[in-house]
């Protein structure tokens, strides 16, 4: 392999099977005789359970079992708090099945197991639960008032966590400021809505006492750990497989959901394989969501627009429970100064319990909210000081010579100091200015306005802390029979193309084709050290671990080949699956080397003959494997980053409001982004584009709506509007590649990049579009047609004749 694979646009190894319909998603796994589970869920946002009667359900033909909190033994307990933090006091987590109280519409109350899903769902309707409904308050700002109804009586004012971080010396800086700009912004509730809902299947083998769980999760190793401890089984006896997973976007990193432990429990209990395939409505009401934050942000600046200090105080909706700790709010609070120098920061948040489905990360994880707050504030500051929006940013961006730029006092979600490691922020801004055509825009806007049209330019910069620790590992082995390279890691993929990106890293080191690298992830039976796929960390953390392991195997290959070819190691070349001696035609296949490095007794094939105990080549004194040596060509290594690496980018858009429908039309959308060295630009662009589409959904369409009683009123794809192709513009993506100094490959994460700045960009563009007729600033997303209508002069929006 002479051309470098790292950085090449290579189509993906995984595609052919997915395209043929041969993917292996959880519900595709054949489990003969499997029973099916369905859940009885709370119809109340907050209620006491007076009684549960399961007799009618049990009498239903085809029903096998009905579980409530009373017959699940040791599982009737509060589930673990995954990420503890001192800012939370007595953090509340959920029980698998409600006992005495329910806290949100959709909370599981009972689980029915039946011969098929049809019967299980019939019977779920027959479980009779007697509720006594309690008062609720859905509005966070009211929920923290003294007389508000409490979600948990244990938590006055519904405060789950209260945390302040300070960087620099904000008080002194505030006193020196010449101008202050202040605003309140809100990003509202949304959901990941992966196309495959969540799925769990389990089978307990009573003979070997082994539990196998197929789970559409982003964190199979975590799920395995949780199950082993909750069930008191040896970790060794629990295997969790995340097969193909139809998108995750954070929703599937949270564990355990009730079904993730109750399905295995029933499998053990009933001695049958059990499946639970969540339906779309359940995904809306039962699987975690994210986003609502209300920020009150203040920028303290000089008259020339240099921001000296930032103060932000925000409310973060954590839903009825806080199983994932403060991660989302913490990411938001530490991203609040964006790409700007702003040396003095005070940021406080209060996480608020609301009687709604719990909040855990959804792609972006607090970053879209922080970006929305700081970028809308920057626009407002520019406006108030009469400075151009590009210029105000230019004056505040961290300059190239200031990297690494640390914010002491701000601890990121990995518990480590925020440190922007590298970047070319000014250049990125300039690229966006050129690509969007800023110089010509004022004339175009004037022309549009003269015609009564509403044309605006939106702009937003974002940063993204990626590649969090603690660590991941990579295991590489060259198989003796095929000579193919096997790579394992502890992650799980949901469509990100890990198998191809990681194969590219390995192919360069080992001189094989990308298609000859067989990659396996998401199976604790294959590899069980690691964390999970989240926070745009796979390429950074697993990628570098695999790179390190590949270098070790490369060395093994070279040494073994040098030995077999009787040449010095520096004359060995590795190409296309062969080791050769430079400038000669002496070469040897990896399969042969892998076989020869494994002392054998049995000659199962031709290559094996030279490795058997009786082969002349094996004759030497001492044991066939020297002390400290291991057989074959194989290595495992780990990468543990010193801290997160910060990717960034700029979005700019030209938008027009259709005054009749109040629809937003994109004339142009450009995205400049920098995720360090790119392993596969095609995959990077795919990630960015997918994120952008989700961002557009979040900016304009996708809104989880609760009524005053806490019912989710749009729990389906008819009313919760995910954009189709017709809503997404053609977006121009441009790359910058500033290597990260924090890891050997120089890479940064990209998974969440696309979605972060879209809300801020769209709001900025809309505010600009109406700035001549209205003071509307669009401080809320998603922006609805109603809000646009309100921003237009009365009588503008006339239906056509």
């Amino acid at each position, binding site marked *: 392999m002479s051309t470098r694979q790292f950085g090449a646009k290579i*189509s*993906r190894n*995984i*595609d*052919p099977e*997915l*395209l*043929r*319909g*041969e*993917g292996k*998603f959880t*519900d*595709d796994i054949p489990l003969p005789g499997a029973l099916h589970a369905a859940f009885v869920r709370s119809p109340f946002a907050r209620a006491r359970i007076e009684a549960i009667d399961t007799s009618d359900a049990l009498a239903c*033909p*085809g029903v*096998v079992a009905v579980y409530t909190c009373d017959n699940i033994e040791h599982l009737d307990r509060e589930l673990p708090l995954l990420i503890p933090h001192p800012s939370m006091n007595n953090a509340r987590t959920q029980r698998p099945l409600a006992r005495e109280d329910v806290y949100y519409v959709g909370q599981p109350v009972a689980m029915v197991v039946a*011969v*098929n899903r*049809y*019967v299980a769902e019939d019977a779920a309707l027959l479980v009779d639960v007697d509720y006594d409904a309690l008062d609720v308050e859905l509005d966070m700002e009211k929920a923290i008032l003294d007389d508000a109804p409490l979600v948990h009586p244990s938590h006055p004012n519904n405060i789950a966590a209260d945390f302040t971080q300070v960087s620099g010396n904000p008080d002194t800086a505030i006193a020196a400021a010449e101008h202050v700009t202040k605003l309140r912004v809100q990003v509202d509730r949304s959901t*990941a809505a*992966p*196309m*495959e809902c969540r799925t769990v299947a389990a089978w*307990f083998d*009573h003979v070997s*006492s082994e539990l196998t769980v197929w789970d559409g999760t982003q964190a199979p190793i975590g799920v395995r750990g949780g199950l082993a401890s909750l069930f*008191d*089984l040896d970790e060794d006896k629990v295997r969790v497989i995340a097969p193909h*997973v*139809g*998108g995750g*976007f954070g929703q599937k990193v949270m564990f355990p959901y009730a079904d993730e432990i109750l399905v295995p429990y029933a499998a053990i209990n*009933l001695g049958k394989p059990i499946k639970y395939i969540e*339906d*779309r409505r359940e995904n809306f009401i039962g699987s975690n969501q994210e986003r609502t934050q209300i920020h009150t942000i203040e920028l303290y600046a000089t008259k020339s627009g240099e921001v000296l200090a930032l103060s932000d105080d925000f409310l973060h909706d954590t839903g009825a429970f806080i199983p994932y700790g403060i991660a989302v709010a913490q990411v938001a609070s530490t991203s609040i100064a964006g790409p700007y120098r702003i040396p003095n920061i005070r940021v406080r948040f209060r996480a608020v319990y609301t009687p709604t489905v719990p909040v855990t990360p959804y792609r972006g994880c607090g970053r879209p909210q922080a970006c929305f707050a700081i970028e809308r504030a920057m626009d407002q500051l520019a406006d108030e000081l009469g400075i151009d929006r590009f210029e105000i940013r230019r004056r505040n961006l961290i300059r190239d010579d200031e990297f690494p730029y640390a914010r002491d006092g701000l601890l990121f979600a990995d518990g480590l100091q925020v440190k922007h490691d590298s970047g070319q922020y000014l250049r990125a801004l300039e690229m966006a200015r050129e690509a969007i055509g800023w110089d010509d825009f004022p004339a175009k806007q004037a022309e549009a306005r003269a015609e009564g049209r509403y044309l605006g330019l939106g702009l937003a910069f974002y940063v993204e802390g990626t590649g969090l620790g603690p660590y991941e590992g990579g295991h590489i082995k060259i198989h003796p029979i095929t000579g193919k390279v096997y790579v394992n890691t502890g992650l799980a993929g*949901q*469509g*990100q*193309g890990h198998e191809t990106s990681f194969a590219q890293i390995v192919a360069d080191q080992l001189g094989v084709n990308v298609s000859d690298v067989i990659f396996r992830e998401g199976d604790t039976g294959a590899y069980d050290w690691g964390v999970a796929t989240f926070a745009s960390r796979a390429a950074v953390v697993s990628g570098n671990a695999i790179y390190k392991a590949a270098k070790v195997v490369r060395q093994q290959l070279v040494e073994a080949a040098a030995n077999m070819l009787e040449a010095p190691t520096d004359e060995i070349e590795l190409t296309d699956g062969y080791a050769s001696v430079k400038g000669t035609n002496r070469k040897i296949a990896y399969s042969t080397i892998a076989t020869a490095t494994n002392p054998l007794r049995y000659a199962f094939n031709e290559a094996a003959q030279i490795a058997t105990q009786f082969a002349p080549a094996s004759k030497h004194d001492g044991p066939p494997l020297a002390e400290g040596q291991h057989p074959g060509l194989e290595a495992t290594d780990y990468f543990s980053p010193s801290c997160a690496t910060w990717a960034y980018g700029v979005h700019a858009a030209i938008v027009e409001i259709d005054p009749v429908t109040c629809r937003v039309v994109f004339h142009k959308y450009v995205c400049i982004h920098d995720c360090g060295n790119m392993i596969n630009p*095609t995959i990077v*662009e*795919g990630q960015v*584009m*997918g*994120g*952008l*589409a*989700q961002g557009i959904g979040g900016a304009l369409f996708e809104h989880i709506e609760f009524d005053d009683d806490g019912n989710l009123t749009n729990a*389906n*794809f008819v009313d919760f509007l*995910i954009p*189709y*192709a*017709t809503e*997404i513009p*053609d*977006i121009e993506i441009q790359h910058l590649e500033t290597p990260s100094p924090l890891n050997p490959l120089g890479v940064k994460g990209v998974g969440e990049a*696309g979605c972060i700045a879209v809300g801020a960009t769209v709001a900025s563009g809309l505010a600009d579009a109406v700035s001549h007729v209205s003071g509307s600033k669009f401080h809320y997303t998603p922006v609805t047609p109603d809000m646009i209508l309100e921003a237009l002069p009365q009588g503008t929006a006339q239906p056509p004749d």
Partner: protein
Amino acid sequence: MRHKPAIAPNIPSVSADPTVEVTMTVNGQTVTRHVSPRMLLTDFIRHELGLTGTHVGCEHGVCGACTVLIDGRAARACLTFAVQADGAELRTIESEASEDGTLSELQKAFAECHGLQCGYCTPGFIMNIRAHLESGEKLDLSDEGIRDMISGNLCRCTGYKNIVAAVRKSAQHFNRK
């Protein structure tokens, strides 16, 4: 936790639903099964026939993941009962590549244009596009036209741009034929 060997519980294996006989041609092969009248066509295809390439994303007719061809027309298997397809001719994603697994031009275009990520929505897109390609109608291959063609399918991963490119690429090939 100790799991003491116990006598296996007596577990029912069937529901009380009546069954009806359905016969249809699926990917060129005639199949007959006895199924509950309320069995969805998605479940019939996936679990009775074991053709798991047809996916289920919403079960209420919005996402298009379950799209199959019924008598040559794109249809949502999640909104169809198996009995409704009695006597019909069905094609699923499993019919798209040739016997030996060689990808069709449409599938190749998806791979070349990186038109899929998780691949969950992909079979539905392919079957919908297949119906358009074979419809005999003149295809509008403008950006808008293609976006309109695929506007019955949701994809949460790709942002559609590469799917649009894949449609254009394969349609050009199709037009040449």
